[in-house]
């Protein structure tokens, strides 16, 4: 594979440039010569940008860096708007027919919105075809894979420090990428992931179907029991409901005990009132009886006494009161005046008259003992007794009435009492008790019903879940078998890949080691000084001198460059990607004899591979030119163009 043509439009210094690289004979060496700053490195960068969209020296910058050069036209020439950057790189296969195509990367900047388009167009005998973006990238991988580009595009100075640090990881990675070992590793990794994924699936514990089935049977037994309990609870609930209905009906038919009790209380109050009235009435009656008893007991005596007093008055046996001094004056003075004779005590007439007067005086004393008020009191007493008798009779009647009322109340109370303490009250109490019991039973059966219904629901869910689990377990069993089978296949494939990788690695490492030694010995001018260049199992490059000592560290700059080229060539050959070798300023760090040997090495290399060298004008010296004379296929010179900062490429005629 080689580069046939490079076309640059608007890329850095190159306003419009074409670099044709026709295959030469006997060598395929192409030289571009230019002073510093004219764009040698940018020419190599243009190839990188076209193929991979990046420039190694622009790392850290964005693609806008490509537009930082404007080519101002000379005076009198109208400036053309720089709207795009375009690099075309045309590759051809070894025979120029099997694979021939042009990569094109175009970058436009319209109204501040940069846009990049990448394409690959083939031009084979079968016709032309255009691939864009990702498809175009696949074609890049067929020419020079991106992972290998550092082994095709070199800076001369870089070649001089190629083995600095002698990083085996770098060499190993490069070698693996080139030889397909990395690809095998990737396959192995994917297979490993696949195996792990399958192991996870298989590793997940599959429930034991027997255990699940036993659980189902157990739960079914529980379900049956719960269903029986539910039926019992429902029946119990119905029984309690019916009983409550009957009790309610009976209670509706039963006499209202509360009314009776109210009536009883009312009658008891009335009874207490009557009792009080009776007591009061009796007390009054008793007083009247006591008062009347005095009159009644002595009624006859009083009547007699009254009669006697009346008789006495009529007979004037109750004279008015007579003062004793009057009688004494009559006896001692008045009788002397009347009779003219003084009577002495002991005289017969005096004594008779004194007795008479005494009897008159005694009679008159009744007036004091029985004053008129007292005499008139007896009839008044009798009248009052008559009145009290009427009151007594009334009182008796009242007492009788109250007693009757009391009897009536007592009868009512007895009736109520009999009703209350009778069988109906007991029945009501029993009904109330039964109602409470039935309500409790209804509540309990309702709760039981809810509980059993809930449990049945849960058990049904559990059974459904178990059924699903059994089904899933059976399915998983089959799946697991299938996965195990697949895992076996993948494991075998992974073993094959591992083996292939190991073999390929061994093969590649061996091939590289052999090719490295062969190329090194072929390219190195001090063939007697170095015994061999080798690659150990750790991918460390060794160069041994004729005494067998390690000589890589003591190699000169040119010798290191040669060793690096030898190693790169080995990589190219082993990987099968026989791309061109593009080296920028290969002689920058060498001079004199070493530069001559280096030029001879590159000239020798160009006989089997396309070599594109970017040389400063100071590098193309007398040590170099003779070596390149025979193998140079084309030579180009970089010069300032007509526009400001423009570089133009012109073929040099030697």
């Amino acid at each position, binding site marked *: 594979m080689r580069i046939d043509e490079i076309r640059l439009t608007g890329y850095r210094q190159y306003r419009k440039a074409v670099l044709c690289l026709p295959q030469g004979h006997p060598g395929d060496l192409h030289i571009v010569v230019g002073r510093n700053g004219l764009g040698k490195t940018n020419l190599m960068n243009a190839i990188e940008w076209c193929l991979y969209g990046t420039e190694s020296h622009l790392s850290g910058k964005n693609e806008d860096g490509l537009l930082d050069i404007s080519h101002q036209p000379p005076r009198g020439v109208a400036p053309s708007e720089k709207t795009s950057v375009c690099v075309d790189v045309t590759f051809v296969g070894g025979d120029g027919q099997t694979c021939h195509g042009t990569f094109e990367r175009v970058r436009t900047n319209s109204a501040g919105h940069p846009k990049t388009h990448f394409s690959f167009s083939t031009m084979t005998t079968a016709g032309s075809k255009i691939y864009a973006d990702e498809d175009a990238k696949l074609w890049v991988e067929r020419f020079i894979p991106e992972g290998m580009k550092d082994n095709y595009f070199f800076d001369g100075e870089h070649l001089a420090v190629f083995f600095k640090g002698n990083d085996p990881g770098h060499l190993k990675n490069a070698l693996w990428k080139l030889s397909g070992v990395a690809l095998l590793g990737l396959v192995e990794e994917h297979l490993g992931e696949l195996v792990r994924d399958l192991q996870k699936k298989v590793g997940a514990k599959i429930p034991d179907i027997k255990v699940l089935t036993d659980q189902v049977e157990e739960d079914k037994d529980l379900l049956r029991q719960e269903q029986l309990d539910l039926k019992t609870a429902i029946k119990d609930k119905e029984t309690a409901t019916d009983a409550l209905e009957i009790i309610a009906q009976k209670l509706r038919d039963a006499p209202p005990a509360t009314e009776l009790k109210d009536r009883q209380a009312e009658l008891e109050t009335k009874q207490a009132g009557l009792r009080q009235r009776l007591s009061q009435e009796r007390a009054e009656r*008793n007083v009247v009886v006591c008062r009347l*008893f005095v009159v009644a007991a002595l009624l006859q005596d009083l009547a007699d006494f009254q009669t006697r007093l009346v008789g006495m008055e009529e007979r004037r046996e109750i004279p008015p009161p007579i003062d004793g001094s009057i009688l004494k004056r009559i006896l001692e003075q008045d009788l002397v005046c009347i009779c003219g004779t003084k009577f002495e005590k002991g005289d017969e007439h005096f004594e008779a008259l004194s007795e008479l007067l005494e009897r008159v005086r005694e009679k008159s004393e009744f007036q004091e003992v029985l004053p008129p008020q007292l005499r008139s009191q007896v009839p008044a007493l009798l009248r009052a007794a008559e009145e009290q008798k009427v009151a007594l*009779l009334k009182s008796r009647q009242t007492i009788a009435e109250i007693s009757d009322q009391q009897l009536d109340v007592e009868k009512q109370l007895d009736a109520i009492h009999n009703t209350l303490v009778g069988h109906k009250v007991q029945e009501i109490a029993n009904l109330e008790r039964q109602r409470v019991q039935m309500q409790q039973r209804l509540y309990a059966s309702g709760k039981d019903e809810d509980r059993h219904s809930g449990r049945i629901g849960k058990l049904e869910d559990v059974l459904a879940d178990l059924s699903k689990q059994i089904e899933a377990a059976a399915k998983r069993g089959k799946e697991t078998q299938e996965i195990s089978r697949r895992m076996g296949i993948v494991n075998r494939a992974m073993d094959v890949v591992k083996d292939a990788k190991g073999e390929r690695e061994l093969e590649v490492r061996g091939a590289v080691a052999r090719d490295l030694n062969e190329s090194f010995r072929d390219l190195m001018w001090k063939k007697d000084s170095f015994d061999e260049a080798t690659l150990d199992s750790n991918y460390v490059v060794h160069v041994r001198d004729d005494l067998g000592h390690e000589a890589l560290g003591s190699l000169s700059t040119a010798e290191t460059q040669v060793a690096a080229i030898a190693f790169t060539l080995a990589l190219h050959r082993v990987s099968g990607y026989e791309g061109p070798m593009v080296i920028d300023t290969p002689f920058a760090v060498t001079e004199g004899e070493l530069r001559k040997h280096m030029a001879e090495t590159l000239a020798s290399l160009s006989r089997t591979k396309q070599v594109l060298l970017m040389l400063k004008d100071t590098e193309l010296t007398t040590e170099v030119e003779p070596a390149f004379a025979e193998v140079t296929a084309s030579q180009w010179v970089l010069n300032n163009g007509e526009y400001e900062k423009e570089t133009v490429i012109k073929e040099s005629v030697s």
Partner: protein
Amino acid sequence: MSRVQAPEILSVDEQDVAFYADDKSLLFTGTGKLAKRLSNTERFLLAFAYGVRYGSPMPLKKKTSYVRMEYIDLDTKAVVMAAITAFRKGDVSVLLDQSAVWDLAEQFAHEGVQLIRQQEAYKRGAMIEELEAFVVTEMDNGSNKHA
């Protein structure tokens, strides 16, 4: 015969004081606000009348002043006079000795208390009904007789 003045205070026997003071006695029924009680004079008169009706004078063993004569009303005096007159076979002159009259009255009252106590103890509550029946009968007879 010269007139003898009535005593200033009537006496009862000492053992009869409790009877007169007993408000709960059958004859003095009633309690609290509804109590209808006989006055001391009326109580004395009741005992006197009972004694006159059913007994004979009983001398007091130990006199205890009970009520002042000035509080004795005319009714009481009339009743006592009539009863004593009857007791003395209608001899009104007996009244001229007021001391003897009231002494006899005290003795009849003492007798009456004894009799009532006995009846109360014996009849146990039926006594008042008997008294009532007696009163009604006697009053009816008396009304008819004295009409």
